[in-house]
């Protein structure tokens, strides 16, 4: 793959740990470079594959439903972060 092609600039697609924002930005970058139309067939197919992986990753992230609410409590001279059960968790 040509060193200068856009998809060569992206690190190998280990998308598992990517934060959502990064994955989405990369996906949109790939779409744009594919649409521009100056990728050779081989590079285009590689970009497409990576785009698909990123798209799946984004979809998974979006469907995450677990909440994480924490509360700051005084601990000694400073603070600590504790899980928060709900508004009943009054001090």
């Amino acid at each position, binding site marked *: 793959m040509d060193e200068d092609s856009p998809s060569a600039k992206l690190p190998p697609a280990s998308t598992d740990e990517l*934060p*959502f*924002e990064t994955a*989405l930005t990369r*996906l*949109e970058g*790939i*779409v744009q470079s*594919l*649409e521009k*139309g100056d*990728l050779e*067939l081989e590079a*285009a*197919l590689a970009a*497409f594959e990576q*785009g*698909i992986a990123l*798209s799946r990753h*984004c*979809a998974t*992230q*979006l469907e*995450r*439903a*677990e*909440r*994480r*609410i*924490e*509360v*700051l409590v005084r601990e000694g001279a400073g*603070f600590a*972060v504790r899980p*928060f059960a709900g*508004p009943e*968790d*009054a*001090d």
Partner: protein
Amino acid sequence: MTDFLPRTLPERRIFTITELVAGLRVLLEESMGRLWVAGEVSNLRRASSGHLYFSLKDDAAQLRAVLFRSDARRMPFELEDGLEVIAFGECSVYEARGDLQLLVRHVEPRGRGALQLAFEQLRGRLEREGLFDPSRKRRLPAFPRRVGLVTSISGAALRDVIEVSGRCFPATPLLLAPTRVQGDGAEHEIAAALSALASLPEEVDVILLVRGGGSLEDLQPFNTEVVARAVAGCPVPVVSGVGHETDLSIADLVADVRAPTPSAAAALVLPDRAVLRDRCARNLVRLCSAAERVLERTRARLGQRREALARVAPLARLAAQQARFDALRGALARNTRRRTERARSQLATLAGRLHALSPLAVLARGYAIVWKAKVGTIVRRAEECAPGDQLRVRLGEGELAATVQDGPEPSSVAAGVESA
């Protein structure tokens, strides 16, 4: 009470100034007591002691007044020259100087609430300082990694924010720094909560400062200089959502973004899953379309090349040339045959003519050719020969050798014939 009025000329009671002034004071305090008075503040002076000395006046009269520091501290607003106020206090005389004065215990602005006035005064002051400048407002992160919350642990605002977060983007962590949101001293707790959130190692990208609706008194902590400075000095962007849409607080003015309600504040800060789902779907569609187009383009290019190749067509050219070659060869062959036949017939004709002219044909009619054997010359006249000359005779068929016997006779020769 001392009777100041002289009744009889000879009995004169001479008072000291102290007695007189003291008497006046008692007279005043007992007859007037405490009362409410309306007037305009003027000649305001704050002593180093913290006591406030001023005058209250109207069109025709004025009265000196004093507001002691302890009472002044309880006031949310500041006294200023020109302010129309209603004061509650007692009339007295400052004996040492013989000054009439009003000891003010409580004062409120006339025509406006004290809190309203305090709000306007603080707003003006902070605005002049530049705390509300649009250039100070920071942009909010599009995808906050963690959202800080400064609000009451038991209030509706917290429930609203949690609910909106669940709808928009439940995966974003929320960190609550609980605080009182009304009552005396709440402003210090609010400021402390803001500062605590901003200093944590667990980074907070943005802070929501929210509380539900309430009266102006209830919202007062959000209209204090303490909270204003805490918000202005916060290293993390602050989104305020205090009270209802119509409640504008100082905190709202200083914050990086003002939301009309706590729910709106949460919605502003959190990405919307539904919108993002759409965006991802659209990207997927575009990705596939673009890939298809790449394939199409490649296919088309291949097709073009095939056609171009076909036009150049070496095989076809070869076949065409082969055909031409065959045609030419055929033509050549036909041509050659014709010529050969023509030549043959010409030859035959000539051969015929030649044959007719040929001496051999003459010979066949009975004539003979005679020549001298040794010399080889043809004999035409008898005189050429002498007896004994060897002659050869060519007949129509065969040859003879002959010897001349008799001398030449002009027209006949008798020759002995020896077959050749």
